[in-house]
């Protein structure tokens, strides 16, 4: 029910929303949880396993129960915590994991079967009959499991990622964080202050203590205003720091308020990467429940949450509230309730020596041992020395003490230590380098302690940053000592919940111990304790205590609790922002891209590049028609192809030749200026890394081409060879792949074409096969290479990239006048297979120069990278699979890449495999399919007919092993 005259809600701004189809009204400043509680809606969810009715437990991001689904269609967003969901006009929320309705949930039957569904029951059954696991049991379990549902539609919302840097990151803007931020800011440091709440203040918003004579929330507002006015401070509310990573890096999730996020193009959430010189963790503490029989009913909640609802949201979660616990939190809550005019039915303080100065029914040393009310709390039972008392109540506020929020300090494998005085784990200094804990998360629970600890932590951080701390005094505040008598679970029959969402009870933990899952990790994994969406924030410590008790060990002797990032569940869309669609990887476009599109060429991905597959002529409906025509064009006239994607590395210096001799198997020092040579490059382990032609443009100047795929790898390799192996060599390297647009002009009419364009005409004599040199086109500087990947007379002409588009269009236009034209990747592939030239289909990282028939390219006269390892016996074994060609001789004339090869008559099994097909194409030149393959002792088996088997495509046929060069074996056409 809503209370009068209190809270931080704006009663002048009513907000309309719905839950499970029913419309309600709340106020700006409400969360969904506070607004529902204001309407006395207590049943809001069902638990994971037993589908028990559940209500709101907390008032923060640690909420295990009150998860809802928000939105429709692609915007459907499951598992949203009602306790942090800001109310906005038109919000539609609905409950989840129930059928047919929240009130009447069929799977609540599970609760009746609970005796059979205890810890680890599924490991012990569902095994008979064998096929039933996948056909029956598992599908049923899968359907029952899970909480909310994804829409199944592509994400349609905007998410962002952003980066920030600061001297000091302060995580948490409660009293400790505010003081730390203020001191650091006053000291001149660049400060980022993050808090996951919509406003700063932390617990000050939920409690009634004063600071320096001001209500705590007001004090927080004032200091926040001061900070906000400083240029060196950035305050980020609604921002949860999710993880601590190396080098002072923190992940943080910012949720934008609906009013902002609903604007066109605005993000819903932003995932930040914050790099901080130092950090202060002031994340506060979380109150923990007490386990007792049926402690999970709607209406049973944390005492601190009840205070928050009363003081901040002006909502009483009940009309007759009872309180139970072992700290002063329940007394404080009772006082606030009474102050707000709410009836307090009883206060049960488990501490036998407890006293109470409030006018209410008081049970010192009492324990709540049961509760009643199926869909909402109706009564509790209290164990007293004189027997069981039953009290009618619709809300029980409980407190089992406080757990410091040590989570971030654990993210780098540090383990917190047990502090018996507060019966909780506290961080140790140095668990995350550069991060200092302060305030409640450091085990300092009074407001005064929080304020001073914030100052201390900031001073430490400033020292580490090499800054002198400004003078700042801690304001006056309450300093009540924290007194707790540990109470983890109330003894007795029945089920007492530890992990509310996953339905892990005290019994489950005890059973795990009985079954010898005594290690904390074993117990957690066996019972699923702490594996729910809250990562055990409110339950891990109690579960550990129960395990310690069950195994006769102390809590620190039993183990510790640890946490992994992210602190709160974080949407994949936020952390992976910008990647949806084509944003996942850069797109690289050649200078002929536009012209290729203009020509109607379908573009295909080649690594990060896009290249044309074919250039369809009018009337062509299948890529093969275009490809066959383009191949014929190159063989008979002239074709033009953009080869700019090949890596180009400019190598200059007196020792350039030495470097090339060392990275290539063959010699380049002997290459004359003005000439090109094919080179083979090995990895140091003796396998082929890459191949390509390198041109010597001058005495000390080479330009290397690499394959498209290996361009970056080869560049890295060359730099490594130079810097890490031979820094004494005087040589410089630079990638010029994108600086030069380069086009192959191939075919018998290639020279004719170029001669119409170049300023100086070419002849076979003045520019023979494998020549290279400068050229010019209407005064524009170009480079010309007489190299051929098609086996035809061919040139590659390179111009500075800004002329690429123009040159490509001119080359194609001129080719067309010579019965030629542009050709794409398909034709390029056919042309190279006809010639037995290699690509990464053959150079796939497992092949050697020996396998490729290129063993002789490894110069005997010099060392090179990979030479020694290439001589290992296993790499020169004559039984290795070696490169051959294949021709169809069976009834089926089609060959397929990826097929395996077998000696005729052998069964197609692994043991019998003789090799495999790497590349195939239909050769319009030869009129049949051809393939490249690796076959054991292949070159010795030319002429042998073997069997090709492609199980996947249902092809079995006979093929003849032949030379891998199918066309123009003496290479005369390229030289002509």
């Amino acid at each position, binding site marked *: 029910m809503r209370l009068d005259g209190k809270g931080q809600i704006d009663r002048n701004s009513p907000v309309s929303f719905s839950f499970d189809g029913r419309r309600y009204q709340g106020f700006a400043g409400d969360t969904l949880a506070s607004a529902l509680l204001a309407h006395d809606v207590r049943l809001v969810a069902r638990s994971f396993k037993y589908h028990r009715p559940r209500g709101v437990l907390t008032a923060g991001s640690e909420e295990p129960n009150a998860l809802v689904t928000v939105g429709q269609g692609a915007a459907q967003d499951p598992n949203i915590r009602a306790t942090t969901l800001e109310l906005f006009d038109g919000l539609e929320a609905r409950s989840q994991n129930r059928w047919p309705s929240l009130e009447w949930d069929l799977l609540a039957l599970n609760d009746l079967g609970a005796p059979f569904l205890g810890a680890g029951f599924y490991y012990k059954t569902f095994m008979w009959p064998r096929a039933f696991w996948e056909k029956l049991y598992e599908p049923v379990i899968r359907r029952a499991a899970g909480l909310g549902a994804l829409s199944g539609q592509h994400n349609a919302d905007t998410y962002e990622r952003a980066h920030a840097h600061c001297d000091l990151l302060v995580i948490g803007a409660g009293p400790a964080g505010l003081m730390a931020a203020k001191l650091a800011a006053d000291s001149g440091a660049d400060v980022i202050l993050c808090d996951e709440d919509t406003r700063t203040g932390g617990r000050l918003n939920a409690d009634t203590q004063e600071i320096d004579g001001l209500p705590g929330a007001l004090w927080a507002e004032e200091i926040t205003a001061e900070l906000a006015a400083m240029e060196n401070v950035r305050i980020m509310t609604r921002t949860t720091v999710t993880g601590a990573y*190396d*080098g*002072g890096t923190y992940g943080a999730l910012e949720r934008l308020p609906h009013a902002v996020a609903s604007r066109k193009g605005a993000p819903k959430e932003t995932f930040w990467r914050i790099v901080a010189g130092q950090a202060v963790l002031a994340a506060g503490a979380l109150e923990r429940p007490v386990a007792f029989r049926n402690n999970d009913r709607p209406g049973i909640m944390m005492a601190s949450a009840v205070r928050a609802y009363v003081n901040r949201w002006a909502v009483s979660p009940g009309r007759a509230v009872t309180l139970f616990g072992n700290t002063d939190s329940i007394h404080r809550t009772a006082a606030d309730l009474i102050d707000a005019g709410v009836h307090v039915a009883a206060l049960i303080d488990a501490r036998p020596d407890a006293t109470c100065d409030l006018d209410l029914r008081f049970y010192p040393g009492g324990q709540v041992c049961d509760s009643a009310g199926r869909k909402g709390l109706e009564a509790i039972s209290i164990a007293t020395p004189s027997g069981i008392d039953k009290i009618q109540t619709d809300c029980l506020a409980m407190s089992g003490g406080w757990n410091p929020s040590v989570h971030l300090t654990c993210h780098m494998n540090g383990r917190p230590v047990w502090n018996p005085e507060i019966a909780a784990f506290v961080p140790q200094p140095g668990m995350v380098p550069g991060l200092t804990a302060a305030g409640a998360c450091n085990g300092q629970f009074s407001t005064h302690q929080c304020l001073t600890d914030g100052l201390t932590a900031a001073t430490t951080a400033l020292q580490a940053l090499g800054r002198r701390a400004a003078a700042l005094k801690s304001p006056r505040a309450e300093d009540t000592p924290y007194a707790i008598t540990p109470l983890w679970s109330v003894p007795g029959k029945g089920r007492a919940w530890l992990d509310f969402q996953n339905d892990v009870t005290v019994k489950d933990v005890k059973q795990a111990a009985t079954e010898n899952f005594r290690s904390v990790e074993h117990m957690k994994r066996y019972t699923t304790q702490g594996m729910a969406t809250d990562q055990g924030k409110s339950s891990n410590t109690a579960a550990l205590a129960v395990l310690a008790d069950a195994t006769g060990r102390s809590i620190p002797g039993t183990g510790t609790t640890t946490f992994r990032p992210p602190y709160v569940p974080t949407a994949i869309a936020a952390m992976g922002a910008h990647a949806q669609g084509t944003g996942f990887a850069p797109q690289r476009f050649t200078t002929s891209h536009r012209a290729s599109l203009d020509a109607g060429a379908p573009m295909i991905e080649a690594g990060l590049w896009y290249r044309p597959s074919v250039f369809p002529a009018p009337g062509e409906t299948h890529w093969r028609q275009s490809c066959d025509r383009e191949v014929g064009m190159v063989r008979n006239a002239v074709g033009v192809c953009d080869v700019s994607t090949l890596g180009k590395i400019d190598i200059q210096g007196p020792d350039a030749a030495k470097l090339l001799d060392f990275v290539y198997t063959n010699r380049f020092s002997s290459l004359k200026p003005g000439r090109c040579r094919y080179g083979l490059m090995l990895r140091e382990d003796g396998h082929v890394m890459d191949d390509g032609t390198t041109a010597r443009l001058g005495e000390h100047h080479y330009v290397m081409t690499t394959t498209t795929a290996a361009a970056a790898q080869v560049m*890295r390799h060359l730099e*490594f060879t130079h*810097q*890490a192996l031979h*820094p004494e060599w005087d040589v410089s390297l630079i990638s010029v792949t994108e600086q030069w647009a380069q086009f192959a002009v191939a075919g018998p009419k290639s020279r004719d074409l170029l001669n119409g364009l170049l300023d100086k005409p070419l002849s076979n004599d003045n520019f023979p096969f494998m020549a290279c040199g400068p050229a010019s086109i209407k005064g524009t500087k170009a480079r010309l290479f007489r190299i051929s990947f098609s086996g035809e007379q061919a040139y590659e002409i390179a111009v500075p990239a800004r002329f690429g588009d123009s040159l490509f269009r001119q080359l194609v236009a001129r080719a067309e006048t010579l019965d030629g034209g542009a050709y794409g990747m398909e034709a390029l592939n056919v042309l190279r297979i006809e010639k037995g030239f290699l690509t990464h289909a053959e150079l796939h990282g497992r092949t050697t120069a020996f396998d490729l028939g290129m063993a002789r390219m490894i110069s005997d006269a010099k060392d090179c990278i990979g030479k*020694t*390892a290439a001589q290992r016996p296993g790499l020169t074994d004559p039984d290795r699979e070696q490169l051959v060609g294949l021709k169809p001789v069976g009834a089926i004339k089609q060959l397929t890449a990826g097929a395996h090869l077998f000696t005729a008559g052998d069964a197609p099994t692994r043991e019998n495999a003789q090799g495999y097909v790497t590349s195939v194409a239909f050769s319009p030149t030869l009129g049949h399919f051809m393939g490249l393959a690796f076959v054991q002792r292949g070159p010795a088996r030319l002429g042998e007919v073997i069997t090709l088997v492609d199980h996947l495509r249902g092809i079995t046929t006979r093929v003849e092993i032949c030379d891998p060069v199918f066309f123009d074996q003496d290479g005369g056409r390229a030289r002509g």
Partner: protein
Amino acid sequence: MRIICPHCGARDRREFTYQGDAVALERPAPDAGGAAWDDYLHNRENPAGVTRDLWYHEQGCGAWLVVTRNTVTHAVLTTDLAATVREGLA
């Protein structure tokens, strides 16, 4: 993780490409024998603690670096240019 490039200062780890143990700087002579080459190519100290490994500032200045680092804590201790380290070995 952030790596301090001697040329460029502290930079995000994603500017760098990792190579492996800095033993790669100590390439054996071609005739050093199978065991020496096996050690160079394959066998590693692989310490749980301080190690020296090679990083390439690929998205930055293009320098190969020898980074002294802790494999358990991920602390980056020192960085040197591989060329300098290599010259020291020669």
